[in-house]
Every structure is written in C-alpha cells, then in structure tokens.
C-alpha cells in the first residue's frame, strides 16, 4: 500500500475535527491510492492540495455542529480578508502605503531615541556611573571644573563610591610620513579609570598606579579605530614606542572596538598630578565615579554636601560657596536638551501615525460600506456581530502587517539619512560640544523591530476598531430590506465624521508646528546674511601642548601665524578670535556709569578679537570704528559693542565715547569706540544677545580670565580670507601651522559656509522634518475629506435626484454638500489650533527668533485648512450638482 506524504497526514490528524477525522482520512487515503497508481508525485501533490483545502475549510463535526475553534475562525477571516483585498486592491494598497509611511517614520524616530538616549553606556551597571562638577551657586556658576586639590580631598573623604576617577582633555598629533600630522583627541586619565568602567584592553594592559607617578615612562593606550587605521591592526604595536606630538611614548594597550570614553577618544595617557606644584583653586579636571551598590545618588549628594562644606570652612579663599554637583554620567553627556529633542521627534512621528490610522479607518469604513450588502447577508445567515467585527479587524491587521513591511524599509532609509546628515550637521548640540558619543549606535536592531511590531498592532486596532464597530452595528441592524441600496447606518456615518474632524485637527496642529519652523528657518537665513564673506576659511587649533604655558605664549603663536599667512600668495587677511560669529561667547558681568551694579542686569558676551576680525567677515561699524593697529598695550583701552548692547545699555545716539567696565571692580574702564551689527546668537534662545568685543592686542598677561573666558586662547578660531582658490588657502594654512609648531593639532579646517551651515543645521533639519510631516498630514486630511464626501454624494444620488426633480438648483445642491464639509473643517480647525498652541509651547527651544503665538502663522494655517477642506469637497459637490433626476431614478 502506498503511503501519503507524512507531514500532510500529520497536519490533517492535528487539525481535523474529531467527528470527521477517521472518515475523511479513510476517504482521502482511498482516493490517494487511486491517483498514486498513475503517478506518485502527482498523487503527493494532490494530497497536499486536499490537506490545505481541508485545513482552510470550515469542516463540520459529524453531528452537524459548526466547529468554532479560534484557529478555524482566524483562517477563515484571513481568507476572507485576502479575498476582499484582491477584489478591490486600490483601497488596500492605499492603506498599506499610508500605514507604511506612519510606521516607518515612527520606527526611525524610535530607533534614533533608542540608539542615543535609551540604550545607555555599554558598561556593566552603567547607571551607577556618576559625573562630578563643582558649582558656585551664589555666583550663578553651576558648571565649574573640579580642581586637583578638591579631587584629592574628595577621594580621601568619600565613602559612597567604589572609587573616583578623573580625566582632562589632551589633544595631540600623530606624525605621518611626509604629510601634515594627523590630529588626535584623547584624555589624560587616572589609572583606575578602565577598571572603574569594568573594561579590559583588547591587547596589552591597562594603566597601573606606577604609570601615574610623576617621572614614570610615557605610555599610551590606543583606541581600536586608531590602531586599525594608523597601525594596520598590528598586535605587535603593543610594546613599541611611537611618536605622539613632540615626544616618543610606548604603546601599552589597545582598547576594544566602540570604546571611546568619555566622548569619542582616540587615545588615553596617564593623568599625573603633582599637588605640590599646583596652586589650590587652580587646574581643571572632569571627575567621575561608580556608586557602591548599597548607596543611592541622593545619599551620595548628601555626603558630598558635607564634604564641600568642610572644604569651604577650611579654605574660604578658594572654596567659599563651592558645592559639588553630581549627575548620572549618561545624562551629563547626552543632556536634557537632546533627550527632549529625541522624544519630541518620536512624538511628532506618532502624531503622523495617528493621522495615517485615521485615514485608513476612514478608507475601510467607506469601502466597507460598499459591501454592506455582503455583511448584512452574512448576519442573516447566522454570523454574529462579533464575528463580523473580528473579520474587519483581521483585514485591518493584514493591512498593518503590509504597512509594517513597508515601514521597515522606510525606517531603514530614515535611519541611514539621520546617520549621514543629522549627526554631522550639528542637529543636536550635545553638552560637551560633541556631535556624537562613542556608545551611540542607531540601526534597525531588535528593540526597534519590537517597537515596530507593537506599534503596527496598535495601528491595526486604531484603524480597524472604528470601522469594525460601525459596520458590524449597521449590519447587525439588518438593513436587508433597504432594497439593495445600502444606506449608511447612523453608526458608521458618525464615526466617519469624527475621523475626518480628528484628521483635520491633527493636520492643523502639525501645520502650526511647520509654520513656526518655516518662520524660524527664514529668520536663520536673514541672520546668516549678516556675514557676507566668500572664500573664508576657519581653522581651529589646539594650543594645549607643553610649549604653551599661558595665554601670552598662545597669542604669540596666533600673531606669528597671522604674519606668515596674510598678504601671502594664498591669503589676503588673517584674523583671530576667541569665538566665531553665530557661536555663544563667554559671558561676564559688566558695569556702565549709569548702571554700576553688575548684578542689576544680565551678563554680556565677551569676545577678544584681532584687528582684522570684522573686515574678514565683511562687517563694518554702524557707528564709530572697529579696531585699529593703534589699539595696543599702552594706548587707550577700547571696546566695540554690538547693536543690542548699545540699544539696551548705552545712551541713545551717544554709544561711541561711553565708558564700560567688565566683571570685577579691579578692571579698568574701557572706552567704546564703535558699534557693530549683532553677529552671534545663542543656540537655544531666540532673544538677541548683548555683546562686547575687546582687542586681543591689549591683552596683558594676568587678565586672561576676564578677557578670554575659561578656556582662554587654548582653542583660538583662526579666520583666513583667501584669494579665490580655497584649496590653496587650506594648504597654506596647514603649512603655516606646521611650520611654526609641528605638534599643534588642527582640530578643524572648514570654509565659513560650512561653519555657518553646521551652526544653523539643527534648525534647518528640524524645519524639514516638521514640514514633511505637515505636508504628508495635509495630503492625508485632504484625501480623508474627499473620500468621505464623495462616498456620501454617491449614496445620496437618489435623494439628490429627487430634489433636482423637485426643482432644487445646482447652487442649492452644492451648498448642501459643501455645508457638510464646512462644519467638519471649522470644528477640526478650532480643535487643531488649540493643539497647535500646545505644540508650539513645547517647541520654543528649537525655534529661532519666533513668537510661538505668532498670529500670522495661526491665521494662515486656518486659511490653509479651509482651503484644503474646500478643495477636497469641490469635486464631490460638482458631481452632486451634475446628478440628473433620470439617472438617479435608474439607479433606484
């Protein structure tokens, strides 16, 4: 006897109802044997076909009892759903594309949030890592570096932490044969750091306490990236001496891939502190620690309050009012601003998804109404209301599954785009001035896929529930007697209108958001136009090496660089400043003769610049003059202020010649010699900023802290105006820096256009993001209004025909249709403007000089929504007016 395919047989044995199984299998075997006598493989194929058909059929029990196991229902529902969709593929495709859009954008936003904020540091119990700063709250300073003396006092006194570690930024260069040296960024770090983080080197060893001794041999641990890119991933490099900056050091280890603590470092060298040579109150360190399992951050803060109180009492001249500020390491480096931005992006995306679901719900409702006949028939054949509702939900689930597939593709594209554009364009200003952090990893990983699946299920529910309830209600109401012309039940009609109003409201909200960012982009454009300079190069160098003991030495370097470059073959002019336009400068308190108390008004920004600074940026003085060669040590002490400073604090029309005094009482009075346009903006705050410029040439040793800010001239911005050949300018700048001091790393070398684009990038990227959301939302809402109205006109053809026959004019009919649309639009717009107001409040920090209650924006959005409603209802209204009584009667 020939045996049928085993797996098909087993499938049947499992799936067939008990009462049918023995007979069915016997009959099937008998027929199979007959087929198998002719061709074995055809018989196998036949058997499989029969098995599949049997599993998918609502096979009865022998007693005639309908089997209603969940599986059979599900299979039947799926079959029904596939059949319905293949009969009318257009609405199904439209729904899949719509859901795919919403799901894709949401998944991409989640992936970004997860990869940057939620994933966290890749260390064991990373949430116990804490970052320390000092604060002088009475002086308004909440973010001060830790001094070496305080660090050591803390180390000895504290008990809440397993240990404390410290690091300080250390830029250097790696010589490369014949070419300018490669800039590297790294940190000097305490020897215990790697064991505190619980990370082991991939090759070699980490630091030991002996490496921290002053005078010990110089050693370095390399990052995986540098080891791969510069040393060909050769394990033998461990133990070898390499040149780093000016001195040879021995490589003792290589860290594993994706390790770049604290930000994205290339190398680590031992932190050597000789307290005997450091004046108390001087020096700066970043400190971190690992909380003991039994202590909490709150307890640790209390302990450190005690420690700093004792230090204040012991050293009042350096530590008065100084407290310690403890934050989770992760939060310190990711920052609230970025976290908020990432969540806001996800919120915007989910809003779009809700919009998409509303649209699909409407589409299902409208196309479902067309098959009300089928549904009513099924109800009269005994299907329960729940059964019908489940069938419709199954359809929605199938659409959501299709949408999820498409969404995965879109999300992948979005994430790739973000990696390429977002991170590099400075979309997110991270607290420590970095564009990215070493543990960031954005991709379509498991959590993102899980999120996508969850949201897709939710989307199926959101888009399927309203039609399921609405249609099953109407079908169960049994309108079989409505003569084949299926009237809309009150349930689905109301549901549909609620959906349209929801759509319009969400769209209005998104349009308000988009309006605000578009306005913000326009403001940025005009702010950028203050600087009109082509062919300007900006170099940022790190003057932190051993050759630069103070700011005077650093100024000598910049002056030397200026002499070498300006007037040469490649550069017309060279200027130096502590910050660039569009960047937030160091700020200090100040006094004027009219307002002598620095506490009485906000601080002002201060930038120290060389003589040609304004000329290079093409900026001329509004009043008075800019700096001249005569503004030197020994001459009259001068300052230039910006427009905002002059308007706010100096006599109207008498700014030039006024006196101002910066910061402490010990500072001399300065004479204002000119007023220039506003050149900088704070990143996050749209208000105009007051600013004062000081000539670098009048800087004398000792007053650097006031004139140059906390970082002094460590990282000066060198601005070079070229002669029309950017490549030559770049080469000349590199050669000049290399020529003066080959160990000075060039941290960046970019055109001014690139710098401006980067500074304004975040606004532009956000502008595009919200604009895209709003455009998609508007199209969806238009489609929603259109489909509901056209359906309504189609179903009321007979009624309209009768009215026409009774003498209703075209205008009356059109008014009827448009009136319905009008009510929905007004309600949607009112709700949406309220939503927009709420959104605007939360967006203030990514907007640039925009009033979040700008009446112009709100009015124009209302206008756009009205226009959308009218456009979408125009075609259906025209169709209604064109209905001929005879046609209507024929339809009846």
């Amino acid at each position, binding site marked *: 006897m020939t045996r049928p395919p085993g797996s098909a047989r087993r499938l049947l044995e499992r799936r067939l109802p008990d009462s049918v199984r023995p*007979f069915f299998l*016997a*009959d099937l075997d008998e027929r199979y044997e007959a087929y198998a006598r002719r061709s074995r493989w055809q018989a196998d194929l*036949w058997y499989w076909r*029969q098995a599949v058909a049997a599993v998918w059929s609502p096979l009865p029990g022998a007693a005639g009892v309908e089997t209603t196991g969940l599986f059979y229902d599900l299979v039947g529902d799926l079959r029904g759903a596939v059949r319905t969709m293949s009969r009318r593929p257009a609405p199904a495709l439209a729904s899949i594309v719509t859901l795919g859009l919403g799901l894709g954008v949401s998944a991409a936003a989640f992936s970004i949030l997860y990869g940057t904020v939620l994933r966290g540091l890749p260390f064991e119990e990373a949430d116990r890592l804490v970052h320390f700063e000092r604060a002088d709250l009475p002086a308004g300073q909440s973010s001060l570096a830790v001094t070496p003396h305080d660090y050591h006092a803390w180390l000895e006194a504290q008990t809440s932490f397993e240990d404390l570690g410290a690091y300080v930024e250390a830029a250097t260069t790696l010589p490369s044969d014949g070419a300018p040296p490669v800039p590297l960024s790294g940190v000097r770090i305490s020897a215990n750091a790697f064991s505190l983080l619980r990370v082991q080197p991939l090759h070699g060893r980490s630091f030991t306490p002996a490496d921290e001794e002053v005078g010990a041999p110089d050693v370095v641990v390399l990052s995986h990236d540098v080891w791969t890119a510069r040393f060909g991933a050769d394990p033998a490099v461990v133990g070898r001496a390499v040149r780093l900056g000016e001195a040879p050091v021995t490589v003792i280890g290589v860290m594993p891939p994706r390790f770049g603590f604290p930000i994205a470092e290339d190398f680590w060298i031992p932190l050597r502190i000789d307290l005997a040579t450091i004046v108390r109150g001087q020096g700066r360190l970043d400190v971190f620690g690992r909380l003991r399992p039994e202590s909490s951050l709150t307890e640790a803060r209390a302990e450190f309050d005690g420690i700093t109180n004792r230090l204040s009492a012991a050293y009042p001249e350096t530590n008065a009012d100084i407290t310690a500020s403890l934050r989770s390491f992760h939060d310190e480096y990711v920052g609230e601003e970025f976290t908020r931005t990432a969540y806001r992006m996800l919120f915007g995306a989910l809003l779009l998804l809700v919009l998409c679901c509303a649209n699909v719900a409407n589409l299902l409702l409208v196309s479902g109404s067309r098959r009300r006949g089928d549904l009513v028939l099924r109800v009269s054949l005994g299907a329960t209301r729940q059964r019908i509702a489940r069938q419709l939900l199954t359809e929605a689930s199938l659409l959501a599954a299709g949408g999820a597939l498409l969404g995965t593709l879109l999300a992948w594209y979005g994430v790739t785009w973000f990696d390429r554009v977002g991170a590099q364009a400075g979309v997110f200003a991270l607290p420590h001035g970095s564009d990215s952090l070493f543990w960031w990893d954005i991709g379509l990983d498991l959590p993102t896929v899980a999120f996508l699946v969850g949201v897709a299920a939710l989307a199926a529910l959101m888009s399927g529930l309203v039609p399921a309830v609405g249609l099953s209600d109407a079908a169960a109401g049994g309108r079989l007697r409505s003569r084949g012309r299926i009237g809309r039940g009150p349930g689905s009609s109301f549901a549909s209108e609620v959906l349209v109003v929801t759509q319009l409201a969400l769209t209005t909200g998104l349009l308000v958001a988009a309006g605000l960012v578009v306005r913000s982009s326009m403001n940025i454009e005009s702010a950028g136009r203050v600087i009109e300079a082509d062919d300007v190069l900006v170099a940022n160098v790190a003057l932190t090496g051993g050759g630069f003991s103070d700011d005077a030495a650093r100024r000598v370097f910049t002056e030397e660089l200026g002499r070498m470059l300006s007037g040469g073959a490649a550069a017309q002019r060279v200027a130096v400043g502590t910050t660039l336009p569009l960047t937030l400068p160091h700020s200090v308190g100040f006094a004027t003769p009219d307002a002598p108390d620095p506490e009485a008004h906000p601080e002002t920004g201060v930038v120290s610049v060389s003589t040609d600074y304004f000329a290079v940026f093409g900026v001329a003085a509004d009043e008075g003059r800019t700096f001249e060669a005569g503004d030197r040590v020994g001459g009259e002490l001068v300052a230039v202020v910006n427009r905002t400073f002059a308007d706010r604090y100096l006599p109207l029309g008498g700014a030039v010649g006024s006196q101002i005094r910066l910061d402490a009482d010990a500072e001399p009075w300065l004479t204002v010699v000119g007023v220039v346009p506003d050149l900088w903006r704070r990143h996050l705050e749209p208000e105009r900023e007051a600013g004062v410029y000081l000539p670098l040439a009048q800087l004398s040793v000792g007053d650097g802290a006031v004139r140059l800010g906390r970082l002094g001239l460590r990282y000066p911005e060198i601005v070079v105006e070229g002669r029309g050949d950017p490549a030559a300018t770049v080469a000349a700048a590199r050669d000049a820096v290399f020529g003066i001091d080959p160990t000075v790393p060039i941290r960046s070398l970019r055109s001014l256009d690139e710098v401006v684009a980067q500074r304004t990038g975040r606004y532009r990227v956000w502008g595009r993001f919200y604009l895209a959301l709003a455009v998609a939302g508007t199209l969806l809402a238009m489609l929603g209004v259109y489909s509901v109205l056209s359906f309504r006109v189609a179903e009321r053809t007979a009624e309209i025909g009768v009215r026409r026959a009774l003498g209703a004019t075209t205008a009356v009919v059109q008014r009827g249709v448009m009136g319905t649309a009008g009510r929905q639009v007004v309600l949607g717009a009112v709700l949406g403007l309220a939503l927009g107001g709420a959104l605007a409040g939360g967006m203030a920090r990514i907007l640039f000089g925009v009033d979040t209650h700008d009446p112009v924006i709100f009015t124009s959005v209302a206008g756009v929504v009205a226009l959308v409603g009218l456009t979408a209802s125009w075609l259906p209204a025209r169709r209604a007016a064109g209905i001929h009584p005879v046609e209507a009667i024929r339809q009846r």
Partner: protein
Amino acid sequence: MGKGEHLGEFETILLLAVAGLPGEASGAAIHEQILESTGRDVSLASVYVTLSRLEKKGFVDTEVDTEHADRGGRLRKLFSPTEAAVRALLETRRAHDRLWNRIDFAPSDAKGGA
C-alpha cells in the same frame, strides 16, 4: 417548493452522485464519481462541507460502515438520499425539462454558429 429546499448547483451534482451509488456512496466514491462525470477535481473537504449542509437540510442520511472489505476494515461513512432529496431532484429536473422544452434549437446551434 420552499426556500430552504432549493438546491444549488453543486448540491444537485452531489445528490445525483449519491443517488447513483446506492449502498456505496462514501466520500471517496462520490469524489471519484464527480471527477468522472464532470471532469472537476473538487476538494474532498468541499464534498464533506456540502454533504453536511445537505444532511442538515434533511436531504441525506448517513450510516457508519465498519465492515467493508475493500477498505481493510477502516471506518467509512456512507450517504444515501432521503425522500425529500429525491423529490427535490425530480422537481429540479422537471423544472429544467419545462425550460428546455420551450427552447427550439438543434444541438449544433449550441456550439455557436458552426
């Protein structure tokens, strides 16, 4: 004839097959009969589903036959038409005949213009 007694096309074919296999109408035999007479390789599941519906409508009776030699003693269910089924089949045939009798074309016409 009431609405519930109306026979669909597949139901008619099934009932005719059952009636043509007195004492032998198992699912397999019915399936084979339909294949031979109409050339349609329907699924055995649809045969079962339809037979169950016909049983509910009172058109077929079933009995379980455990003794049949050909089947190696395996269980099989045999179907037979009820009185009502015979009446319904005859009524269907008469209706068909009446309709056919009104038509006056030679068999060749049916081929569509030979």
